[in-house]
């Protein structure tokens, strides 16, 4: 079986190298065909456009009868991808895996996952909340992340002003809300962490009682 696994993976790598249209790349790590790095460009018309995303791929012993293990190496701001670990929540990597799927087709599925987030089945609860509360602010944050981590070119206006995203922007929070608490004397890092957890964005800013925030900051 392991022979068949090697043959298949080698064939997949060859086929992927031949295919120039899909823009998917597959590279072995240390010539090991069972540990690879896959990469693809962020899909157009999304906050991830222009970014280049790398994925760590581990081919299990029983491949293709067991799903391939994939996680993002590039940090991604996306409801179904853990912002911390890069772990991915996608059905075909779990119970909907089929041995007919390939490394390439799975990477293409990841690419389309970037196009169509499934916030109801999130991997990263905080990001999912952000996505559901304030789409505009979510898109901006995702774009900041793409620029900071996935080498996406900064927006034109930003380039003119030479502005680099602030830590508040990277967390998808408004500078105004962060400032409000740092001026009370709380350390900036802590404020950002707490506001992020409380999803202090959009309408939540107006509705959340001040006490709740203070309690979280003091705990």
């Amino acid at each position, binding site marked *: 079986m392991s022979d068949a696994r090697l043959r298949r993976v080698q064939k997949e790598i060859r086929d992927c190298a031949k295919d120039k249209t899909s823009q998917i790349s597959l590279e072995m790590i240390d010539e090991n065909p069972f540990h690879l790095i896959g990469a693809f460009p962020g899909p157009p018309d999304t906050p991830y456009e222009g970014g280049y995303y790398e994925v760590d791929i581990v081919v299990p012993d029983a491949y293709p009868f067991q799903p391939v*293990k994939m996680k993002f190496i590039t940090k991604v701001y996306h409801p179904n991808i853990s912002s911390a670990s890069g772990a991915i929540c996608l059905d075909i990597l779990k119970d909907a895996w089929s*041995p007919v799927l390939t490394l390439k087709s799975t990477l293409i599925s990841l690419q389309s996952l970037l196009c169509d987030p499934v916030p109801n089945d999130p991997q990263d609860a905080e990001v999912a909340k952000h996505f559901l509360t304030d789409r505009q602010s979510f898109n901006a944050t995702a774009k900041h992340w793409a620029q900071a981590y996935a080498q996406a070119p900064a927006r034109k206006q930003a380039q003119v002003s030479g502005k680099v995203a602030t830590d508040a922007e990277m967390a998808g929070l408004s500078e105004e809300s962060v400032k409000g608490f740092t001026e009370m004397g709380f350390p900036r890092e802590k404020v950002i962490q707490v506001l992020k957890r409380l999803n202090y964005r959009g309408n939540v800013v107006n509705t959340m009682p001040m006490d709740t925030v203070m309690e979280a900051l003091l705990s």
Partner: protein
Amino acid sequence: MSHSDILESCRVRQQDEILTLQSIYGELITVLPNPSQKAGTLITLSIPIVLPSATPADLSSPISSSLPLELTHLPPITIRLLLPANYPAHAPPRPVWMKASLQQCSWLSRKTCGQIAGKMATMWREEVSDGEGMEVIFRWWDWVANGDFLEEFGILVDGRLKLSVPPMIPVSTFHTLLKSHNAAQVHSEFQSTAYSCSICFENRMGTSCIQLPCSCIFCTPCLNSCWTLAITEGSLENVSCPSPQCVKTRATRSDGQTSINYIDSETIRSVVGEDLERRWQELRERRRAEIDPTYTICPRSTCQAPVPPPPQSSQDTPTPVVSGPRIIRLADLTRTEKTEEDQLPTPPPTANTEDRWDRYRLCPKCNYSFCLFCGNGWHGVHLPCAFPKTSEIVLEYLSYSEGSEERRRMEIRRGKMNLEKMVRQYREDEENKQWLESRTRPCSGCGVRVEKSHGCNHMTCNRCHSHFCYRCGLSLSPSDPYAHYRHPGTSCFEKLFDPEEIQRFDREAGEGMVGDEWPRGIWEW
């Protein structure tokens, strides 16, 4: 052109036509020897008929509706032709005889055969121009082989074949003959075609491939690896078609559609061999036993095979018991000892013996015959079960204060060591039960206890693939399990993640990722 010139040109044209036909149809066309050098040529054609798609067929019989039939391949038509010396220029080929044989009979009537043969002369006449005819056999062959003649002669009407059963043979035999001819042709066509296996990406001949009921095709070695792994790991769901569409259909199927994509045991045996097929059967039985409350598990610790209910009990409707003993199910006995103590009256001696046969079970694997209620060897219908009194005794013992006279009396009667052992066992069981109840939830489908280590509250049972909510235990729709967390006002609204889980995310975000280390458990989620 002189007469002999014409004959010579016809001879050459005939030879060319026969050579061409032979190069296309090979052995289906034979030239008969002509030792006496008579004018003209005798040839035999055997034309297999292949319809463009599987076509339902009705037989001319009142019981035809009970014999469903779908055909792509019809038995060949054999015709012997005399090509006159002046064919193709001045005469059509002359059919000598024709048959549409199926074993000893003919599946087309004599009249239809005549019509089909007659068409050849008609076709030849249609091609005549400037007083000279054309070669016509290929065109006629095509017209027969594609089944075009069926429509022309009213045998194929509105996409259904109307076949008349030949006299002297029973309709069922005719049906079987047509069906087996079709199956044999389909099979040999499959075997001689090359398929690209979508698992190993290699091209293989049909002889080493298999087509599943969903019509997906894989090579047998790949399917063998796939199913062997699934059977060894006990994931019955995966002993089915591995194509992404079929997998998706299974993953999102609703309850009650468990038979989707199930593969019959014969196919499984042909792919994985007898031993694994037997194990698959066992697993399936056990799975059924886990879900079906009428099944029980053989109480012998070395056997543990699933035991189905006796066949007659399924037909009997439960008779209302007027004065007989209260029927106690096995589940009642194992639930809690407390209720046992309260509710367990010894069945009166007037027990209805008819009822007790319901409790008789025979293990199909080890042949142990036992009582469903008490798990002891079958004690016959006349004897009541010897119910285990252990917990009753323990509770009685514990109800007396330590060092009391009652306890001392019990100790004398049953042995102090024994009682202490029973108490220890009882406490351990209680603790286990409490732990199970506080730390696990039952699956809404099969009741197996599930412990959540981390992740969201949407659970998919590893065993029966039911979807359920870990918070409230409700079973969820497989097609959209997350809908449960989106309805404002319900207790689980926006509770897909517990607060602890979100804090865990926070911690991870704080720690960040370290090199190549995979966070433990993330993948299992």
